[in-house]
């Protein structure tokens, strides 16, 4: 077991390095001058050249990569070209906001998905199964940014019940757990929860249905076990798969919330990424993608290990 964990960790290192290479080269295939985020069109070229030197952009690309990687490993993600502020500081706040949103979406999406999927799998083929399946397919088919717009139109524009954007009066610096702030969370969290809800439902349904078909369930029943205990057994067997999909989805929520954050002007990583793209603020772009994908690598790793711990049969060579 320990050997597996160590092996898995070691395997994550080249992956992380590969990710770093991709992110770095992304920025270098980008057309246009990376300094354009900062420099007004009429700045004299001597000033621009000085800035280029300051940002190390006059060096050859491989040297830039080594420098960048070294700095990144020591936790220095560079300085935003547009604002001159350290990227790491900007990201901390944004990650916290995205995390808040993602966790709330999870609290809505996962229990609902497990419930729907479990019920559907247990009553495989019955009407309730069909309703749950239809809900799940709708969940994974709906363009979530459009759903967000729809919710804004209904609840903000037409009914004027909930705010359409932002994190509330204090922004993220003065977030507090009162209704004035929480009402800002409702629409984005619901919007974001729809896809994971659908995916969790589908996976849990399939897993439960498959387990229900296995011989041991019949055997348990034959032994005279009460149905509630049978359900408990089924749940136990379905847990590793459910956990895996939930873990993965949490990772996707963190990295995939950009469209929802843009629709609701939620000041998280996705919103920041969008700003970085629009302003062509490349260090910020690099930093954000790097942190999000590292999060994802880490979540994958944890899910793998956790899954193995729960179900040793899953251990792979």
């Amino acid at each position: 077991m320990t050997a597996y964990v160590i092996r898995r960790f070691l395997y994550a290192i080249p992956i992380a390095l590969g990710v770093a290479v991709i992110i770095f080269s992304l920025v270098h295939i980008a057309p246009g001058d990376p300094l354009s985020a900062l420099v007004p069109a009429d700045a004299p070229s001597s000033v621009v050249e000085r800035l280029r030197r300051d940002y190390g952009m006059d060096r050859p690309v491989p040297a830039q990569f080594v420098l960048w990687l070294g700095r990144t490993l020591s936790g220095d993600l560079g300085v935003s070209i547009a604002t001159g502020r350290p990227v790491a500081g900007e990201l901390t706040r944004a990650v916290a906001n995205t995390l808040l949103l993602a966790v709330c979406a999870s609290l809505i999406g996962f229990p609902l998905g497990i419930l729907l999927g479990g019920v559907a799998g247990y009553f495989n083929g019955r009407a309730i199964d069909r309703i749950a399946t239809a809900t799940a397919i709708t969940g994974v088919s709906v363009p979530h940014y459009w759903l967000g717009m729809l919710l804004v139109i209904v609840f903000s524009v037409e009914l004027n019940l909930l705010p359409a954007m932002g994190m509330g009066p204090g922004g993220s610096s003065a977030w507090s757990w009162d209704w004035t702030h929480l009402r800002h969370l409702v629409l984005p969290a619901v919007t974001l929860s729809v896809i994971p809800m659908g995916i969790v439902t589908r996976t849990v349904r399939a897993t439960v249905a498959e387990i229900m078909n296995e011989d041991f369930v019949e055997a348990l029943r034959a032994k005279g076990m009460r149905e509630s205990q049978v359900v408990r057994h089924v749940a136990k067997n379905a847990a590793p798969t459910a956990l895996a999909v939930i873990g993965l989805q949490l990772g996707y929520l963190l990295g995939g919330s950009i469209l929802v954050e843009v629709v609701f002007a939620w000041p998280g990583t996705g919103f920041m990424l969008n700003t970085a793209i629009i302003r062509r603020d490349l260090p910020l772009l690099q930093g954000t993608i790097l942190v999000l994908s590292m999060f994802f690598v880490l979540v994958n790793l944890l899910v793998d290990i956790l899954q193995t711990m729960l179900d040793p049969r899953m251990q792979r060579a």
Partner: protein
Amino acid sequence: MAEPTGATALGTPADDTVPRRTSPRGYWTNVAKRLRRDKLTLFFALLLALVFLSAIFAPWLAPADPYATSMLKRLTPIGTPGYPLGADELGRDMLTRLLYGGRLSLLMGILPVVNATVAGCILGLIAGFFGGRVNMAIMRAMDVFYAFPSVLLAIAIAGALGAGVVNTIVSLTVVFIPPITRITESVTTRIRKQDFVEAARATGAGNLSLIRVHVLGNVLAPVLIYASSLVSISIILAAGLSFLGLGATPPEPEWGLMLNTLRDAIFVSPWVAVVPGVMIFITSMSFNMLSDGLRHAMDVRM
């Protein structure tokens, strides 16, 4: 894992991807028979056909010119005579633009999956067939791409390349290559190790003919089904990129871009602003249902 983590998740396709099949002809007859009995799938297939036909025949179907603006008719509500679905922020007929919009939206949604299927199959076949270092090199490179959440990777590439239809297609293609490569590779590897392939090899069959005869046929079904489930994601993502301003560029009609430009109008003509999203939804839903139906009909477990 019994079902793919499916839409938007690009979940790791699991191991038992080999379809159980006997004689080719009997298999496909069975598939067709099962499909005919699946009314729900047929319904969505029909819906999808309608969407395609309306996009293809847009010039004949559309009541107006998709680029013709009218300041007087701007943001006309749904149901106005002459404007059954209202008019957009420049007074262009929404119905017309929806019909035309399907062309770019479908192209941007489907082409990346087609590209990725071709590229992924080739990479997967090479990796699976040759094994060893070649396999290692290709599959570890794919693992790196797997380390990105798909939405993030698409946006990162499109964001770096800049707005444009071609850039969107490129970025989504890159996102979809790894999962298809993985499926192809796993099926190919398994088949390569089976006895009959070894036997064929012993009789001196060339690599290419081995791939053609034994591998391709077995790989095709799972890959096609997986690819069909990707189309739904691809449609949503492509329109999403346009929605962020990273895809199609004005004044082209495209559903995601239409959503984007109509967002400013949600306080004036909210329900017109919603319409393009309905089309994205219908298309993506149909592809999902179709993919599910195909999977059942072809009896592929993934």
